[in-house]
C-alpha cells in the first residue's frame, strides 16, 4: 500500500523556509495564545517524560525508611510519601505514564476508528447501520465503568489499559471520519476516481482518506487528554496500575489517605501535574479544532 500511495512527483515547486519551532510558536501565539500555551505545557511534560532520568534528583521507587512523610524541603522539593519516596522525582517520572498510555491508546483508536468510519460512510446501508449502532452502543456506557470492568476482567496490566482505552475511544474517530466521507462520497472527484477504474480500497485510502482525515486529526489532542484522565482515574481506583508505580493516579490514591492527617503534599503535586497536562492537551486540542473548522474560526 505504501508504494501506491507515494507520489511519483515529490518535491515542492515552491521552496519553503526552514522549520523553526520558535517562529512557529510565535506565529501560533498571534492567532491563538491559548493554543500556544497548550503547546508549551505539552512540550514541558514531553521533556519531563523523555529526560526523566536526568531531571530526577532521587530514584522514584527507592524508599528512604527514615524520611517517611516529610514535608517539602530543600532535599525533597515536593516532600516524601508514605514509603519515604521522593514525590518530586515520582511526579516527573509519572509523565512517562501519561504519554506512554495516551499516545498508543489514541493511535489504536485511530487505527480502528478511521477505517471503520471510511467503510461505513462510503458503503452506507446495512453495513453502516450495523457498525455505527455497535459503536453507539459502546458510547452509551459511561466509559470509566466499562473500562473498569474490562480491565478488571482481562487482567491488570499496562498493556490492557492501553488496549481498552484505545478500543473504547475508537467510535469518536469513526464518527468524525464517517461524517466527512458522507459529504465527500458523492463528490465529482470520487466519481472520477471510480470512472478511472480505481478499486474500492484505493478510493477509500488514496482518495477519501486524505480529504476526510482533517477533522479526526483535530480530535487527537482532546482524546489524548481523555486517555490521560481515564488512565489516571483507573489507577486511582486501583485498577490497571498499582502503587508504588510512580503513576499520578496511583500516587493520588496513596496520598488521599494522608490528606485527613495533614500530609497534603503526597496527593497535591501529582494532582497538579495531572490537571496541567490534561489542561494543556485540551488547550492545544481546542486550538486544533478551531484551525480546522472554518465555522468555529469565523465565530472567533
Amino acid at each position, binding site marked *: 500500500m505504501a508504494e501506491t500511495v507515494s507520489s511519483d512527483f515529490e518535491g515542492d*515547486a515552491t521552496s519553503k523556509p526552514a522549520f523553526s519551532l520558535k517562529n512557529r510558536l510565535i506565529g501560533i501565539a498571534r492567532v491563538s495564545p491559548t493554543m500556544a500555551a497548550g503547546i508549551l505545557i505539552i512540550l514541558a511534560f514531553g521533556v519531563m517524560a523523555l529526560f526523566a532520568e536526568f531531571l530526577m534528583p532521587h530514584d522514584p521507587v527507592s524508599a528512604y525508611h527514615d524520611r517517611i512523610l516529610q514535608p517539602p524541603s530543600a532535599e525533597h522539593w515536593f516532600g516524601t510519601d508514605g514509603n519515604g519516596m521522593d514525590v518530586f522525582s515520582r511526579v516527573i517520572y509519572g509523565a512517562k505514564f501519561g504519554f506512554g498510555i495516551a499516545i498508543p491508546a489514541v493511535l489504536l483508536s485511530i487505527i480502528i476508528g478511521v477505517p471503520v468510519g471510511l467503510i461505513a460512510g462510503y458503503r452506507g446501508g446495512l453495513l453502516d447501520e450495523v457498525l455505527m449502532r455497535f459503536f453507539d452502543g459502546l458510547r452509551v456506557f459511561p466509559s470509566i465503568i466499562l473500562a473498569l470492568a474490562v480491565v478488571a476482567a482481562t487482567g491488570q496490566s499496562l498493556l490492557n489499559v492501553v488496549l481498552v482505552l484505545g478500543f473504547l475511544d475508537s467510535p469518536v474517530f469513526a464518527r468524525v471520519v464517517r461524517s466527512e466521507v458522507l459529504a465527500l462520497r458523492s463528490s465529482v472527484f470520487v466519481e472520477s476516481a471510480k470512472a478511472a477504474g*480505481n478499486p474500492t480500497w484505493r478510493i477509500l485510502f*488514496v482518495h477519501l482518506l486524505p480529504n476526510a482525515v482533517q477533522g479526526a486529526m483535530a480530535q487527537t489532542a482532546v482524546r489524548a487528554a481523555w486517555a490521560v484522565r481515564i488512565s489516571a482515574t483507573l489507577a486511582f481506583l486501583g485498577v490497571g496500575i498499582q502503587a508504588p508505580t510512580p503513576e499520578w493516579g496511583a500516587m493520588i490514591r496513596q496520598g488521599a489517605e494522608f490528606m485527613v492527617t495533614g500530609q497534603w503534599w503526597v496527593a497535591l503535586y501529582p494532582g497538579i501535574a495531572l490537571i496541567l497536562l490534561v489542561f494543556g492537551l485540551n488547550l492545544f486540542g481546542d486550538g486544533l479544532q478551531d484551525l480546522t473548522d472554518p465555522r468555529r474560526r469565523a465565530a472567533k
Partner: protein
Amino acid sequence: MTSPVLNVSNLVKRFPTGRSGVFVNAVNGVDLSIAPGETLGMVGESGSGKSTIGRAVLRLTEPTEGKITFDSRDITAIPERQMRPLRRDMQMVFQDPWSALNPRMRIGDLIAEPMKLHLDLSKSERENKTIDLANRVHLRPEFLRRHSADLSGGQLQRVCIARAIATNPKLIVLDEPTSSLDLSVRAEILDLLTEIREQTSAAMLFISHDLGTVKLISDRIVVLYLGSVVESARTEELFRNPAHPYSQSLLSAHLPADPNAKLSRHILKGEVPSPINLPSGCTFRTRCPVAKDFCEREVPKPHQIGTSGHEANCLRIPDGGNRITPSEVA
C-alpha cells in the same frame, strides 16, 4: 460495417423521489450507437437526461431498464469487479474540472493514475508517459508537481483530458467539458479535443447544451428532449435539414457566424414539462407549434429521412406538417 464500440438500446432511468410510486423519468427509452472513432454529439436542455445517459453508459449510475453493449460485450449488469478492467477502454471528462480532481494529489499523479491502475509500466516509463501526455494537452511539465488549487480552470480541464486519454481508451464520454469555462478558454479546449480526436482512434460521446459547440466537434448529433431522442442525423444534415420541430427551434435559436445572415427565429413558448408527470403521446406536444390532436394519443416512432441515417421522431412527418414556418426577425 464494423460493430459499434457502444450500443445502447431502450435505456430507461427513473430516480425515486422519496414518495412511493412517484419517479423522476430522467431517461425514457433511448437508443444510441457509436461507431469506433466516431464522435457523437448529444444536445438537450438541462433536465433532458443527457448527463444521466453519459453516466449510465459508464455504469456510474445503474440503468433502470435497457441494455448497454460496450465493445460487443453486454455490460448492463456485470459487477463492478468485472467492470474495472473495462474502464481502461472507457474514460470520462467531467463538466466541472475544479471538483473533478482530488485536491490532495499532485497533478502528475492524477494524470498517471489511470496508467498506474491499468498498464504494467515501470515507474520511469510512467513518468515519461506522463510528461508526454502533459505535452499532448499543452500543459507545461512544471505543473506536474503542483496541486489542483494552483491551476486555472482551463489547465485543470487539460489535466482531466490527459487522464482520459492516458490509457488509449476506445470511448471517452465528455460531459459538457467546456460549459464551465470562460469563452476564450472554451475555444482552446475545443481545439485540443479536435486535435486529440484526429490523433487517437477513440470514439467520443460529447454531451452539451450548446449546439455551436457540438457542431464543431461531432460527426453525428442526437437531439434529446425530456429523456427521449427526438432526432438523430449527421451534423451537416441536421443543420441543413432539421426535421423535428424541436430541432428546428433549437437551430433557429443558434446564431450563425455570419453577422449579415438573416435571422429566422422561432422561440418556444412555455416551460419544459415536469419529468415526474410526462405528457401523454409525444412529450414535446405541449410546446410544439405544429401539434395536432393525435399527438396526444400516439407515441412517435423514428422516421427515416433520406438515406444518410437521418431519423426524427415526429408524428407529423408523414403528412409534411412538421415544418415550422419561420417568423422573420430584422
